[in-house]
């Protein structure tokens, strides 16, 4: 039977397992949208307020339910509005398929209305991209896009479908799609690795997003227990272990825990699982690598040896590698090392906040008290993000949606929308700041339309907190354009969107609001904190644990 290109796109999205897509219509995708309209009982389309919101939503959706996120946008401005969200998914290895429309092939390459070279623009921030010039290639191309997005190190794949291909017709046979082949364990000398681990007295495990992606939390926990090895986490790996597991030292690196960063420096072995040794995590690499063996396990071969030089390495899926390694690991007690960890834990300086009664810590801890283990937590980027990572009691792997690699302010609101659709409209918390929230708060409109119970905790200090903190520390307090002299009334703004809006000036006021949240509308809670609150510890860029700043 002959069907249109637009129909083929919808059929292939469904055949590849998509049930929800996010997007925004426009001239070059109207044929595709007509098909989405006809097939709305088989494929749910979520209309956001801006393409950036749609792509962050597809990202949040993918992170929450471990499937491939799908986003659709029109040509030209629709496509360019996606760029930040695609880069975000690329740097955090999130599987995503992006479908963009483009001008008809007859006027392609002529700077036609709403024509941009989206393939050229997104080249460095996608795993791969396709332009479909012949409708006969459409079915296979979309299958390939899903396969590439999900295999190996995951990431975004873009498929550009010109308008004339959407309206063209060709034979279609509804062929089943082969499921993506699961990763297999790579060949490696597990015994040699186990032997190298055995002789070390101060083992430290550094776990990251690869542990979440491969679902290796149980294996990570077993390794830590067997070796009596403390675990430091990267931002992307923060939820890999429950926060209350005694050997979970928390995040390491620039704004990580003192104990986590110091233990990494003092260890004689770092077993790095699904991490890429970002500069934010390692600081000065020469200092980081000193006096220790580094074993690096990661699914991306190009990450091995890129930022640090491991003594031993294996390229493969973390869960499979650990499953092979674990039976060969001998139980170790390492009492001296564990005693040292306890000492370091005691030395961890409790953060002192300017305002003792109402500060980021007790705001976040209060929100945590009113959440369940299954509550998805999204963040934006800045001080509030660091505080949320430090003080929120994460218990379930993958429940944190945060912009790790790109550090994209404005990520959170879209991500929270996506998470709601992944989690059957369950309560979702967004920690944001007044700077980040202002960037994409238009998605409150989306949350109201779709009755999403998103709780926006606006940690509002009237400033771009991290730049201000850096200016205080490194630029002699010259606060160049980082104080936001705005008069925005956020609760009133929320109400104007049709959402609930509150201001909480104390923990008890916050509690009263959290006790009585609507389950079919978003709520914005404006929590105004002191502008002088800062994030500690802090390691200056390029520094090491020797340069750690513990308080202001």
């Amino acid at each position, binding site marked *: 039977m002959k069907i249109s290109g637009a129909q083929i796109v919808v059929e292939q999205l469904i055949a590849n397992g998509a049930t929800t897509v996010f997007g925004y219509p426009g001239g070059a995708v109207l044929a595709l949208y007509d098909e989405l309209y006809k097939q709305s009982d088989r494929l749910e389309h979520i209309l956001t307020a801006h393409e950036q919101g749609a792509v962050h939503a597809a990202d949040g959706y993918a992170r929450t339910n471990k499937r491939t996120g799908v986003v659709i946008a029109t040509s030209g401005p629709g496509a360019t509005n996606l760029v930040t969200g695609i880069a975000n998914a690329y740097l955090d290895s999130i599987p995503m398929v992006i479908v963009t429309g483009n001008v008809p092939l007859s006027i392609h390459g002529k700077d036609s209305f709403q024509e941009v070279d989206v*393939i050229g623009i997104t*080249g460095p921030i996608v*795993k*791969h991209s396709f*332009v479909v010039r012949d409708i006969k290639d459409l079915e296979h191309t979309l299958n390939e896009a899903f396969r590439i997005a999900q295999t190996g190190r995951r990431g975004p794949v873009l498929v550009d479908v010109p308008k004339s291909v959407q309206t063209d017709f060709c034979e279609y046979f509804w062929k089943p799609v082969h499921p993506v082949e699961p990763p297999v364990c790579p060949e490696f000398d597990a015994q040699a690795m186990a032997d190298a681990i055995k002789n070390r007295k101060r083992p430290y495990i550094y776990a990251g997003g690869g542990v979440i992606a491969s679902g290796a939390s149980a294996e990570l926990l077993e390794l830590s227990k067997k070796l009596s090895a403390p675990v430091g986490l990267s931002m992307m790996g923060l939820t890999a272990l429950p926060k209350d597991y005694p050997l979970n030292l928390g995040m390491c690196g620039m704004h990580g825990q003192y104990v986590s960063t110091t233990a990494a420096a003092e260890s004689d072995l770092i077993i790095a699982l699904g991490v890429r040794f970002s500069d934010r995590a390692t600081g000065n690499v020469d200092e980081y690598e000193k006096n220790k063996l580094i074993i690096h396990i990661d699914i991306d071969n*190009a990450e*091995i*040896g890129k930022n640090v030089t491991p003594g031993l390495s294996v390229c493969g899926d973390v869960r499979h590698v650990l499953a092979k390694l674990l039976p060969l690991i001998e139980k170790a007690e390492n009492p001296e090392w564990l005693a040292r960890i306890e000492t370091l834990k005691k030395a961890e300086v409790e953060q002192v906040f300017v305002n003792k009664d109402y500060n980021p810590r007790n705001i976040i801890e209060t929100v945590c008290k009113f959440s369940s283990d299954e509550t998805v937590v999204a963040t934006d980027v800045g001080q509030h993000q660091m505080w949320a990572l430090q003080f929120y009691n994460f218990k379930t792997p993958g429940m944190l949606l945060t912009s790790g690699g790109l550090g994209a302010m404005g990520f959170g609101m879209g991500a929270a929308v996506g998470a709601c659709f992944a989690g059957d409209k369950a309560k979702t918390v967004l920690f944001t700041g007044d700077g980040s929230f202002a960037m994409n708060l238009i998605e409150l409109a989306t949350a109201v339309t779709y009755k999403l119970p998103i709780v926006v905790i606006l940690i509002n200090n009237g400033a771009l907190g991290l730049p201000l903190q850096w200016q205080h520390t490194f630029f002699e307090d010259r606060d160049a354009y980082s104080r936001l002299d705005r008069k925005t009334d956020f609760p009133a703004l929320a109400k104007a969107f049709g959402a609930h809006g509150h201001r909480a000036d104390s923990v008890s006021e916050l509690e009263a609001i959290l006790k009585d949240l609507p389950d079919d509308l978003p709520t914005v809670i404006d929590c105004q904190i002191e502008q002088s609150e800062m994030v500690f510890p802090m390691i200056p860029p390029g520094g090491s644990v020797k340069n750690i700043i513990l308080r202001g």
Partner: protein
Amino acid sequence: MERFTVELIVSNQYGVLNRITGLYAKRGYNIDSLYVNETENPLVSRMLITSQGDEYTQTQMVRQLEKLYDVQKVILMAQINR
């Protein structure tokens, strides 16, 4: 710095050269010479790219090139000291 050459077997399609040179540009490496030709198999092309870098750079470039969808094979050619 050593001069090094990689030989690539790639899909013979528009845009492929762009992705490969884009990778060099993104990582900040200059291309000294570039040679592309179609092979006896019209579906694939062969490329020779000469650039400069130490052992680290060479390994990184090979591994990054191997990740590209259009790249079927990467061979690091014998090194020629300057």
